[in-house]
C-alpha cells in the first residue's frame, strides 16, 4: 500500500529531521506515530504528500512513486491523500459546506470551484458525510463559529471528500479536551474501518494511541526506535522513545474507559441533536477552553 524507503529530510537550517526511515503501511492499518516534539513526526507525514520535499528516499503509494512526480501529477496524487490537521486548519471565513467541498478542489475545474457550482454527486456526498458526523444542521455556519470538536469533524469530512486512499492525520487532538479527543479519535478509526482506509496518525497522547491504533511506531530524532502492537508498549520502550521517566501510570489499563465511552456516545448524540440555544453555546465554550 504505502512503502517508504530510505527517507531522509534535512532542512535548510541544517537540522536532520528524518534519518533513513523505512516504513510500510498495509491496507486498513491505523498506525499511530508517537515521539517527542521535534522527532520528525510532522515532517514524515508531510513528506508523504510532499508539502515538505524529502531530501532523499522514495515513497510509493499503490505503485505510484510520489517522490518522483511532476507538479501536475503530484496534484493528482495529493487528491488521494486526505489530510487532517492540528488546530483543524479550516478556512475560517468559509462556511462548513465550503470547507467540506474544498476537499473536491483537486477534481473540479477552477470556474466551477470559484462559482461554488460543484457537481451534484459531490454535494450529495458532502451532505452524507456531514450527517454521518452530526453536523448537517450547521452546513451554512462559518467555520469559526464552531467548537473545537465540531471543527475537527469538519476537517475529517474535508479529508474524506477527497475519496482518499490513505489518511494523514497530524495531531488531531492537540487542542481538544480529553473527551472530545476520544470522540475524534473514535470517529477517525471508525471511518477508517468502514472504508478499509489506512491512516498514519501523529499523536502526543500515548494512551489515546494505545486505545485506538492497531500499530504503534515510535520516532526519536528522525529514526524509528519502535514498531509494534500497542500491547507491547512497555516502560523501557517509552524510555527508548521519549527518554527517562516513570511510565507506569501511562501504561496502566484505564479501567473506566469503557464506562466513559458509553457516556461519550450518549452525550455526543445529545449535543448533535440539540444544537439550538444553550447546549450549542456550552459546546462552543468547551471547544474554546
Amino acid at each position: 500500500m504505502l512503502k517508504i524507503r530510505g527517507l531522509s529530510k534535512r532542512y535548510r537550517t541544517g537540522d536532520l529531521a528524518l534519518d533513513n526511515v523505512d516504513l510500510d503501511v498495509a491496507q486498513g492499518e491505523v498506525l499511530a506515530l508517537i515521539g517527542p516534539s521535534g522527532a520528525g513526526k510532522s515532517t514524515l507525514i508531510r513528506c508523504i504528500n510532499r508539502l515538505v520535499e524529502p531530501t532523499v528516499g522514495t515513497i510509493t503509494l499503490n505503485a505510484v512513486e510520489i517522490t518522483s512526480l511532476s507538479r501536475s501529477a503530484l496534484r493528482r496524487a495529493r487528491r488521494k491523500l486526505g489530510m487532517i490537521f492540528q488546530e483543524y486548519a479550516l478556512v475560517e471565513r468559509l462556511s462548513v459546506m465550503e470547507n467540506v467541498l474544498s476537499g473536491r478542489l483537486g477534481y473540479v475545474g477552477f470556474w466551477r470551484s470559484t462559482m461554488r457550482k460543484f457537481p451534484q454527486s459531490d454535494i450529495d456526498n458532502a451532505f452524507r458525510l456531514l450527517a454521518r458526523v452530526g453536523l448537517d444542521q450547521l452546513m451554512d455556519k462559518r467555520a469559526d463559529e464552531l467548537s473545537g470538536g465540531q471543527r475537527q469533524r469538519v476537517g475529517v469530512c474535508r479529508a474524506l471528500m477527497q475519496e482518499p486512499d490513505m489518511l494523514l492525520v497530524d495531531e488531531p487532538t492537540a487542542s481538544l479536551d480529553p473527551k472530545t479527543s476520544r470522540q475524534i479519535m473514535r470517529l477517525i478509526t471508525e471511518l477508517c474501518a468502514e472504508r478499509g482506509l489506512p491512516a498514519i496518525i501523529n499523536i502526543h497522547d500515548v494512551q489515546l494511541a494505545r486505545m485506538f491504533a492497531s500499530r504503534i511506531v515510535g520516532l526519536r530524532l528522525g529514526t524509528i526506535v519502535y514498531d509494534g502492537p500497542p500491547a507491547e508498549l512497555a516502560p523501557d520502550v517509552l524510555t527508548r522513545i521519549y527518554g527517562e521517566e516513570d511510565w507506569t501510570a501511562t501504561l496502566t489499563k484505564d479501567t473506566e474507559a469503557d464506562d466513559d465511552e458509553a457516556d461519550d456516545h450518549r452525550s455526543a448524540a445529545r449535543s448533535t441533536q440539540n444544537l439550538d440555544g444553550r447546549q450549542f453555546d456550552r459546546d462552543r465554550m468547551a471547544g474554546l477552553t
Partner: protein
Amino acid sequence: MSVAATAPGGWRKPPVIKSAALRWAIWIGAVVYLAAAFGTTEVNWSRVWEGLPRGARFISAFLPPDFTTRSSEILEGMLESLWMTVVATAAGIVLAVPVGLGAARNVAPAPVYYLCRAFLAVSRSFQEIILAIFFVKFFGFGPFAGVVTLVVATIGFYGKLLAEDIEDVDPAQAEAVHATGAGWLQWINYGIQPQVMPRMLGLALYRLDINFRESAVVGIVGAGGIGATLDTAFNRYEFDSAAAILLIIIGLVMLMEYSSGFIRRWVQ
C-alpha cells in the same frame, strides 16, 4: 555590600540608553539644534503684521459661499471628479490584484516577487502631484491624465497593502487547501482570498475616499475634475465660489468617511 544597601529601596525602569553621558549628549544636542533651527528661521514680523488685514479681507471674501453663480460649472466638475474617482479606483484595484499577488513572498516565486516589489516601489515613490504633472505633459490637459495618475497611485497603494496582507495569512489554512490537490488559482481562491477579503474591501473603500480627495488636487495641475474648477475660481478671484467648492468637497469626504466606516464594520 553596596548592592545590598541599595536593594531594599524602590525600583526604577532601566533606561533605554545605558550610558548616562550618551543620554545627556542626545538631549543637549536635540535642544541646541532646535534652538538654532528656530533662531535661523527668518520671519519678518512687520510684514506678518501688515499682512494680517489682507488675510482677513481674503477670508471675508470667502463669505458667504456662493453656490449658485457657478453652479453648472461646479456640478460639472464634481461629476467629473466622481467619475474619475470611481473609474480610477476600479481600474486601479483590478490591476493591483495581480501585482499584489506577485509581490507576496509566500505566494509568488522569487523572480516574480522581486519584479512586482520593484514595480510597487517605483509607483509609490512619486507623490500624486508629481505623477499628475508628468501625465499632463504626456497625455495633455484633461481628466484622462488625472485618471491615469490615480490608477498608478492606486496600484502602488493597494498592491503593497494586499501583498502585505497575503504575507500575514494563517499558513495552516493555506496549507490545508494545498493538501487537497487544489490548483494554484483554486488555492488562492479558497486558501488565501477568504483570509484577506474583509481588509481588502475596507481598503478599497478607503482608497475610493483618498482618490476623491486626490482628484481635487490633481485638477490644480491641469488633470481635470473639481480641482480644475477650483483653480479657475481662484484665478478669477471668485473666492465665494471657491468656498462653495471647498465646502462641497469637505461634505463629500465626510460622507464617504462615515459610510466607509459603516461598511467596513459590516463586512468584518
